[in-house]
């Protein structure tokens, strides 16, 4: 009986000590630099495996997508032909407008519109479940990636910001991550606010003054005071408008222009041209 008591006491003490040590290290001390360093080593060593796994996952994803859409391909093709004809005409009109714009800019002495130097990166890992969504891209410090660089797709749609840089890869916090807040404005009415994430609502444009006008379907873009993020990148479109909890401001839920789950390639803005 004594032996049993002794062994039970030893086991309980051992468990309690481990629990306390883990609690102390992870919650009270939480040394970011040590964990970040470990993450760096882990991601650097396992980079080839991650790349192979993500390529295989992408191949399977595309294969299953093709199989599941095989029935609707004919209809989609017909729709695309009609759209293509419409876009060709639209494109011709825009080219004409662009030429006219360049002539006018020259005449009034304006410089060409700002563009960015970007680098292409493939997504090799992700976790989009819950409120802390992140992506892992295959470009790191060796490719000139730095913390807080903006990530875009399709020319000017904001995906997120680089949050951690490793040797061969970097971690990106997506716009819907609860840790992110970006200064934004509506393209149509110029209402200013902050884009962030709220539980149950998804991505929202918050802290909009009551005097500012918001309209459903308006585009929300990055404003000139967004830190490290160029002005004019599309974040989303206004879906629903609510008063904030304290009723001092207005708030709007946003629909995202891209499906993050289907995203395979992104662009990192290295610098402005």
């Amino acid at each position, binding site marked *: 009986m004594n032996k049993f008591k002794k062994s039970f006491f030893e086991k309980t003490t051992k468990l309690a000590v481990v629990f306390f040590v883990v609690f102390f290290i*992870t919650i009270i001390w939480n040394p970011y630099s040590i964990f970040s360093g470990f*993450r760096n080593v882990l991601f650097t060593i396992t980079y080839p495996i991650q790349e192979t796994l993500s390529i295989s996952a*992408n191949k399977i994803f595309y294969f299953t997508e093709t199989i599941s859409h095989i029935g609707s391909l004919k209809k989609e093709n017909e729709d695309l032909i009609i759209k293509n004809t419409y876009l060709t005409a639209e494109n011709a009109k825009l080219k004409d407008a662009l030429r006219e714009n360049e002539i006018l800019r020259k005449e009034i002495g304006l410089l060409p519109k700002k563009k960015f130097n970007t680098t292409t990166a493939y997504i090799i890992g992700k976790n989009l479940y819950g409120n802390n969504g992140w992506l892992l891209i295959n470009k790191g410090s060796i490719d000139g990636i730095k913390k807080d660089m903006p990530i875009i797709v399709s020319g000017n749609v904001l995906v997120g910001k680089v949050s951690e840089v490793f040797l061969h890869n970097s971690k990106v916090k997506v716009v819907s991550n609860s840790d992110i807040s970006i200064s934004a404005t509506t393209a149509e009415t110029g209402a200013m606010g902050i884009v962030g994430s709220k539980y149950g609502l998804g991505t929202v444009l918050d802290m909009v003054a009551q005097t500012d006008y918001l309209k459903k379907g308006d585009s929300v873009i990055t404003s000139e005071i967004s830190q490290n993020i160029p002005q004019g990148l599309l974040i989303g479109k206004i879906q629903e408008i609510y008063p904030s909890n304290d009723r001092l401001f207005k708030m709007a839920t946003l629909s995202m222009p891209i499906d993050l789950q289907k995203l395979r390639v992104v662009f990192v803005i290295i610098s402005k041209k």
Partner: protein
Amino acid sequence: MKKTIIRIIILLSAVLLQVSFVNILTPSNYNLNIVLLLTVAWIFIVDFEKIWLWILILGILTDIVNGNMAINIFYFLTLIYLVSFISKRILIDRYMYKLFLAIFIISVFFLTNMVVDMFASGKFNIGLFLEQIKSKIFLTIYFKNILINAVGFCLVYYVLNKIENETTKSRKMNYDL
């Protein structure tokens, strides 16, 4: 030594498969949680005293990769305690019992995950929680998640059982020699 190396490989494979394979393949609302399934399967296959430290390391590794410290560690510690508590009181020998217990753990895990998310965003209130779990979209996603993970559990359990049996066999053979 061989067993230790194999277990380290299992831990790393689970975390890497989760981040770079499963998360890329599955739609964002659906979460096949390989790491959770591995934890549950391990508790069923190997004795609690022999495996708890490995599960603790798995929790730490998952948290380090995800960058949100302490969440998975405490999930897994609670899980180990819960499963060992139940299995000591109810004899769980049959595979079907294990599967039911695994499904129960998975369903509790997804609900607690939601509560933790609500707390983390400072938006927790019982009203919102009840409203969410009553909605049709939530219920559809929730039950599909449980189904996907139940199928995943059978696969993970089968593979892990094979690996653990093989390593135990080769260890016995070494002793015999």
